[in-house]
């Protein structure tokens, strides 16, 4: 799994909420405030009509924050610009867009700027509740990841495209190199990125994994995920075949049998 998710654990956390909307900021506050009070997950620290102070806040902020940003601000910068600014500063804050148009490119921003959700004006209470619940769940997940991070064992952080992936090295089945591309195969998918086999090997060593061994000049296999070894191939538990070169055969076979 890429994300460790456990249900039903009462984790306490405090989030700061920032609202920026040039027309309805107070009414939005009126909807949000009771919800977060009830859930006891934080407080509203800023309600603004113009983005200037919010930008100031973004620049200095270090706490985990939920931003409710109106996209169509009557100002030199709009909500999307602010979201970009936030992402430049930190990746952990939550962004929710408020918009009058239902048909704006949400998916794109969701992927690009990691926007949690968007709310269409006039703001509906149920939408806000759903959105805040989503944020709570995400925050809970994050807490667990942080807990895991304290151990720091076996976790590889890999950046592929616009996204950061966390891979438990023990889940790796095999690693493949095609020219400048590295493809890590896991039971639940594959992640590829630009790097070299040497870098990956160093990374694996640094997180303390020794079960992943080189079996070919462009393949590494996880000994614990081998199903059987053929004359020239290593057959993995998901049925994929990795070539086995003579140079590494002995080592792989020995490790597999022990």
């Amino acid at each position, binding site marked *: 799994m890429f994300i460790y998710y456990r249900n039903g654990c009462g984790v306490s956390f405090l989030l700061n909420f920032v609202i920026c909307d040039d027309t309805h900021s107070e009414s939005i506050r009126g909807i949000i405030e009771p919800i977060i009070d009830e859930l006891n997950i934080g407080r509203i620290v800023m309600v603004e009509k113009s983005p200037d102070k919010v930008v100031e806040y973004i620049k200095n902020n270090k706490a985990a924050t939920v931003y409710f940003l109106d996209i169509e601000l009557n100002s030199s910068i709009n909500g999307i610009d602010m979201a970009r600014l936030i992402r430049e500063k930190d990746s952990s804050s939550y962004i929710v867009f408020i918009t009058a148009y239902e048909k704006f*490119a949400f*998916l*794109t921003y969701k992927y*690009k700027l990691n926007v949690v959700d968007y709310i269409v004006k006039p703001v509906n209470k149920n939408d806000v509740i759903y959105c805040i619940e989503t944020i709570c769940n995400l925050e809970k997940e994050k807490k667990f990841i942080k807990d895991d991070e304290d151990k720091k064992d076996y976790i590889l952080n890999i950046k*592929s*495209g616009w996204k950061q992936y966390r891979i438990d090295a023990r889940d790796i089945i095999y690693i493949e190199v095609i020219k400048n591309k590295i493809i890590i195969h896991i039971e*639940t998918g*594959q*992640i*590829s990125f630009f790097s070299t086999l040497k870098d990956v090997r160093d990374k694996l060593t640094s997180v303390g994994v020794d079960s992943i061994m080189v079996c070919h000049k462009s393949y590494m296999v996880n000994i614990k995920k081998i199903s059987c070894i053929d004359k020239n191939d290593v057959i993995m538990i998901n049925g994929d075949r990795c070539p086995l070169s003579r140079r590494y055969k002995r080592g792989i076979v020995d490790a597999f049998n022990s």
Partner: protein
Amino acid sequence: MLLIVNFFMSLIMGIMFYISVIKLSSYEFNKKNAIGFIFCFAFFNALIRSCKYYDNVTSLLKIFAVLVVIIFFANVFIIKNIIKSFYYSVLIYTVALINDSILGLLMIKIFNIPLNEAQNNILYMTIANLSVLCMTYFTIITMKYIWDKKKIIAQINKNGAYILFALIIFIVTAANILVYNKYIEMIDSRFILINILITTIYTLLTIAIHRAYSNLAINEQENKQLKAYINMAEELIDEYRRVRHNTHNIIESASAFIKANDMEGLKEHLSSVIERQNKINKNYIAPLYKIAHPGIKSLLYSKIGKMEELSLNINIEITTTMSDIKVNVSDLCEVLGVFLDNSIESAALTQDKYIELCIFEDHRCYTIIIKNSYDMSKKKEGNGIGLKTVKSILKEYPNILNNTIIDEKYYTQELLIKKQK
């Protein structure tokens, strides 16, 4: 006497031409046409051959005259299409000429038959002509076989085809010039001049024709795909007209209610309008207008059609034109086709029936995300072949990353195409 012998030889040549044309063009055999063609051709060919001038220039002219005769009778008797008969005749005649010269070489240099005898002894002439017939026939069969295959080859490696083509032109030109450089002192200067002229024209013409043809093939493919898109755009315009018409009606009747001060009626009217509005299908095809390449456009169009057929919950967002992707579009289409087919198939098996397609760009790369609801227990076998194709295609592109993420509910395919700097 000479005329009769020539007529006999021309008959053999006529039969050869007839068989080859039939083989190449896949026209049906017809006894009447066959006899007509062979006899007419033989007669005129014999006449030309009996012409008693043998200097270099006249020989060349004779060859041209024979060609004209073949084209004419092929057009009259067999194909009835001047361009096609021209094409086939020139082709077969070229093959026959090459075979003829090979045979001449064999007879004179290897079997040591004197040139004079080879050209006058009836037995030798018959054997030679029959051999040319057989050789030409086999060459034509081989060519046809290769052509049927070549369609695939050309698709696989266009660059290779270009290089090969250029190489062939070069070899022909170079060989020709080498030969004449060697014999330049022996040959009539008029003939050399004609040869240089012909070689130059040959080179220029072949290049021009090849370019025109390759452009044509690309245009034809795009044309087909564009047609599909235009049809779809027209449907959209139609729908837009309908919507505009409806809106007009709604406003008209609403204002009538207001004029009559009938608030209850207005309420009823508007609620019925809203209900109807909700029933109108969302249009998923509209986002496609952004995509610049007609191939990708029409592929997505057909896949969206498939999604709608299966009544999936579709979420599509395209915010980029994908205009300067450094990927062979047919490869990209193949990859997207496999991903979308797999997604549609497995989304249809789930309860949510959710499918999401998002294409966007940032300063580093183009991103294509295909996400669908996914049920582990209802995993379908047989996706493997498609994904294998994808893998082998992506191997060729160091600038494309492919991530697959499977979690409890969703299956996500990401394709990241790095922008070239």
